[in-house]
């Protein structure tokens, strides 16, 4: 019995060990973790092939994970001591990993390759500066803007997008009724923050040590948002949906305004054939505020081949590959050469898309909602549920803000 079991184990062992990537043996092997890019598989394989051709002997393992799975996956790989060398991370998570010491400091590498550095859009590049050091470079970039449904506006007797917070709410109120609502916003990753920022509310003090949002003004804004949600001027999905639900709702044509980042345009256009330059406008919210939701590439500190990883990062964000990405995925890359060409091309071929994408390089100094915190996701988890309760009318704004302040302060204390 026992002997048989041993025998079986020895038979199984090599079979089981086979699929294990031979990380230790291949000295020039790196792994690249992307964030939900499976649909680009054929292109990605080409880009990797290009890199391998330029770097003989190098080997690139490509892993892709969907948003909610990626952080969990990265954690497990950190524990196992096999973090993917190059990682594609969305939004503030990169700062968080930087804060925890998972990422390689790229400042020196960038300084050495000054031409490369100069070609990254400076404001987007600075999205991932933590304690004065660069930890990631832009891979594909976006920030929020306001889409307005010109049909709904016209029906309500309006002819231009709102210029103040009061106008946003007032216009939304005019456009509501029956199936129709006035305003939708995405809410994940602080994307709703411009509504607070345009009212002069700051989440934290400049030193990021104390919450500063619990003010009379904030309570007033929250109660305005809550009332508008209750009346149907603001669509309730704004506070419960993530990505699919709000965009899908806007694509039905029943919603007046959508506050979302640029990629939403191509998504809703795919769902709503009525959408074009005549029917949907793209503009900035009052004050030009926007929350970035960009993807960046970073290098794990645990990488065994950091030079090769850096070369790979330069390859992927370099003109050739970035241009290929920009064309296939209709995105902006943060690579200035590529983005200028992309915008010029779109201005000619697809003016509506051009109108949307050009907003991404306007007011880039007015990006809000990304704090240089090492524990951003915990602060977010402390703040958001309270905000959500307030706007959904489950708590009074005052109580919600007080609870949020207590919870955020606790997270900051523990950082």
């Amino acid at each position, binding site marked *: 019995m026992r002997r048989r079991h041993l025998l079986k184990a020895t038979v199984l062992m090599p079979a089981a060990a086979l699929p294990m990537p031979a990380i230790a043996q291949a000295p020039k092997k790196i792994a690249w973790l992307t964030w939900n890019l499976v649909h680009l598989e054929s292109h990605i394989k080409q880009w990797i092939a290009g890199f391998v051709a330029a770097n003989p002997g190098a080997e690139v393992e490509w892993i892709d994970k969907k948003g909610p799975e990626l952080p969990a996956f990265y*954690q497990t790989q950190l*524990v196992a001591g096999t973090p993917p060398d190059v990682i594609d991370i969305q939004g503030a998570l990169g700062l968080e990993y930087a804060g925890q010491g*998972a990422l390689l400091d790229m400042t020196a590498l960038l300084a050495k390759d000054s031409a490369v550095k100069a070609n990254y859009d400076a404001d987007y590049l600075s999205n991932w500066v933590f304690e004065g050091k660069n930890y990631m470079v832009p891979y594909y970039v976006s920030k929020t803007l306001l889409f307005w449904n010109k049909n709904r506006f016209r029906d309500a007797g309006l002819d231009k997008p709102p210029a103040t917070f009061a106008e946003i709410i007032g216009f939304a109120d005019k456009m509501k009724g029956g199936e129709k609502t006035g305003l939708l916003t995405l809410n994940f990753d602080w994307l709703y923050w411009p509504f607070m920022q345009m009212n002069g509310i700051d989440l934290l003090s400049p030193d990021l040590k104390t919450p500063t949002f619990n003010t009379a003004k904030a309570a007033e804004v929250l109660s305005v948002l809550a009332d508008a949600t209750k009346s149907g001027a603001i669509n309730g999905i704004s506070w419960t*949906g993530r990505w699919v639900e709000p965009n899908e709702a806007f694509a039905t044509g029943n919603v007046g305004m959508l506050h979302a980042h640029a990629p939403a345009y191509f998504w809703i256009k795919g769902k709503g054939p009525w959408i074009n330059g005549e029917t949907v406008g793209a503009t900035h919210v009052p004050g030009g505020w926007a929350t970035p939701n960009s993807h960046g590439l970073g290098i794990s500190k645990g990488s065994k081949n950091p030079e090769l990883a850096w070369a790979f990062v330069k390859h992927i964000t370099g003109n050739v590959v970035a241009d290929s990405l920009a064309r296939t995925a209709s995105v902006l890359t943060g690579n200035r050469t590529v983005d200028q060409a992309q915008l010029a091309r779109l201005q000619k071929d697809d003016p509506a898309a051009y109108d949307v994408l050009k907003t991404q390089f306007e007011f880039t100094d007015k990006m809000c909602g990304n704090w240089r915190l090492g524990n951003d996701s915990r602060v977010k988890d402390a703040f958001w*549920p309270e905000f959500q309760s307030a706007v*959904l009318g489950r708590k009074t704004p005052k109580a919600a803000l007080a609870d949020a302040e207590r919870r955020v302060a606790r997270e900051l204390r523990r950082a």
Partner: protein
Amino acid sequence: MTDTRPDWYRRKRTREIATVVCFLLPALVLFFLYRILPLGWNLWLSFQAWSPLKPAQFIGLENYQEMLLDDDVFWQALGNTLIFIGCSPLAIAAALGIALLVNSDLKGAAIYRTIVFLSYPLMTVAVGIIWRWLYDERGGFINYVLRQAGFITEPLKFLQSFDMALPSVIVADFWQVLGFYMIILLTGLQSIPQHLYEAARVDGVPARARFLWITLPLLRPSIFLCLVVGILNSFTAFDLVYVMTNGGPGHATELLITLIYKAGFGQTRFDYAAALTVVQFLLLVVLTWVANRAAGGNAGSREG
């Protein structure tokens, strides 16, 4: 094992024990590696501040302090977990009803039994997807029926609603586990000696009383087993919650097990997750003890 025994006997005895040890060892090693060691490790970890990027540091009860005093989400997840477990007697009662029906002289009982049990072997992830679809506000069956019957005019968003999400998940869980409860109870019912009923019938005991005084008491071990399964179910429901709501909206469907996953693998807080695990384990032990009492004292001892 006294020395008065002959030599050959002792040799045989040694061999026998060696065999027993050999036979037991693989299973024991496995349970040591994947049950006992992790439990101890969790306990030790829960007193530390540790992440893959930071060396461990002893911080005493700080994790527990945070959990019990500061963490609202923990209390919500705990409450949800208790609701989840607290609803299992409902499913067990329903399963008991079905088991009684199947056990009576119903025609085609075997077919009914198969149909009711059919949902248990299903992959929980698939169950989650199936129920997401049933609850869907456009293509979903439930909204369709409710709208056709005129109960509602607007589709209900079951899984996006703070009040309905948890019950919705629990219903899906019922559907899956009902058959398992039924089989357990059915085997319990079938092991009750028939002559007890006959004697009672001869004595003119009414059916209600027969159920109360014969069936229920003799079913205690099965009911206890069902309760334990129900409690353990709050752990395995991870798959279901992960697929159906991922804990949302807000934390309306957060269970302790999903919170542990999020803390550990989402936020690099393995230390805090370990403390949560310890609390969850204690909860489990206490609840099992309560279930044992509720099912009539030493029901579990039959297992030994």
